[in-house]
């Protein structure tokens, strides 16, 4: 069985069927890229993996552990969901940094709050470890000197790199990106994509939704093409980009080349 196993994820918003049964598998250390036209359900799928949407049907299994079984209502307590979603990290299109906290505090806020439940004796060492880890992560995304700055003082590209570091601070098993560069000026996308590439070099398991085809081809181990709530085609980067089978994918790739 694969590391991540997603089976038959379905999600409706009222009468709109947005995900019509998504199956996917991902091995540890692999990068999965999701492409597809606007409204095909890419964001909804990532949100479902991060438990921001509860699917109407389907299961999510990670490393043999069932994290979500939509038919099992007992798995829906706040506590359960909170625990399970920590396996995943999500980097948003709009960064969503906390504006009132410094860059460093954005990274340490949640880990610190979790450390509060530790016995007092261990807490101090833990908090020190959290800070050191956060500083190392900022160095990793090239923002050490911005630790004390506030998000409003950073460029979009810098904010997104902070958001990536913030997600990494919780050491998720799988890190998800929802169009991480779509809100950025073109000259700022490079620095963010570079960080994501470097994470791949570390064999981090990632799921990336993107419209940057050049980047997608370079970073993807496997690619999924979504269309109208289903996976219309999937395969290796080469299969999808060099030898697209379905007319829908061919059409989509042609359109994105023209842009």
């Amino acid at each position: 069985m694969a590391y991540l196993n997603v089976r038959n994820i379905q999600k409706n918003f009222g009468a709109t069927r947005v995900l019509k049964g998504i199956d996917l598998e991902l091995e540890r250390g692999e990068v999965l890229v999701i492409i597809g036209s606007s409204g095909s359900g890419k964001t909804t799928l990532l949100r479902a993996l991060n438990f921001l949407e509860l699917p109407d049907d389907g299961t999510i299994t990670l490393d043999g552990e069932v994290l979500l079984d939509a038919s099992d209502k007992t798995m829906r307590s706040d506590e359960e969901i909170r625990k399970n979603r920590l396996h995943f990290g999500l980097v948003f299109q709009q960064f969503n940094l906390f504006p009132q906290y410094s860059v460093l505090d954005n990274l340490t806020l949640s880990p610190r709050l979790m450390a509060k439940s530790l016995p007092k004796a261990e807490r101090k060492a833990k908090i020190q470890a959290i800070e050191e880890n956060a500083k190392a992560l900022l160095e990793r995304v090239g923002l050490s000197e911005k630790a004390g700055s506030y998000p409003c003082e950073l460029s979009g590209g810098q904010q997104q790199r902070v958001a990536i570091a913030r997600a990494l601070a919780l050491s998720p098993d799988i890190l998800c990106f929802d169009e991480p560069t779509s809100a950025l000026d073109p000259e700022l996308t490079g620095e963010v994509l570079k960080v994501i590439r470097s994470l791949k070099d570390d064999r981090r398991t990632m799921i990336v939704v993107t419209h940057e085809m050049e980047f997608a081809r370079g970073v993807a181990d496997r690619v999924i093409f979504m269309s109208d709530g289903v996976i219309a085609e999937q395969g290796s980067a080469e299969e999808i980009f060099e030898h697209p089978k379905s007319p829908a994918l061919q059409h989509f790739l042609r359109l994105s080349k023209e842009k």
Partner: protein
Amino acid sequence: MFGYVTQELLLGFWTTLQIFALTLLFSLPLGLVICFGSMSRVTPLRWFCKTLVWIIRGTPLMLQIIVIFYGPGLAATWAQGLSEQNALTSWIASWEVMDRFTSIIVAFSINYACYFSEIYRGGIQSIPRGQYEAGQVLGMTRGQIFFHVVLMQVIKRITAPMSNEFITLVKDTSLARTIAVYEIIWAGQQFITMHGLLWPLFYTGAFYLIFCGALTLAFGALEKKLNYYKV
């Protein structure tokens, strides 16, 4: 005479300040409770809070003061006069009239809590969903998201409307004289009836001005302090 008038007015102003401080003490948290109630998913609770806010904002504070001061006594008299008593009516019959000052604090606290609840609600609802979702994917609990992520941003957004309410409250305290609570306007009026002097009443304005000026400065300082980040 000026010294004597000042002394008398200060005595009245002390009551004014007490009304101001106690009203804030109770209405600031109560407003948060009403605010959560009016955003609650529990329909009866939501309707109760919305109706309360509608009634309180839809009627004059002066009328609310009168109802709260005289209402319980009237209800008790009515209940005592009934020929048959049940648990409810005998409970009502046991109601006692609150003293004047307490009535004022109760009326003001409820009134301001309703206004505050609407300001809070506007502030809370203006925070982008992405802030909550970022907190959620970072594994924070609802309470942690509210207190560590949302609250500070809400406070920043509501300082301007809140400073308005605080300043309105300073002047609304003069309504306490409706039920003969000896606040500063009442103190000033005493000089008309007792000494035929009008200027002490005008002089009360200086007290309000100075106090409101101090509040404005304090809120200005708070806004400046919160200006270290933008949303």
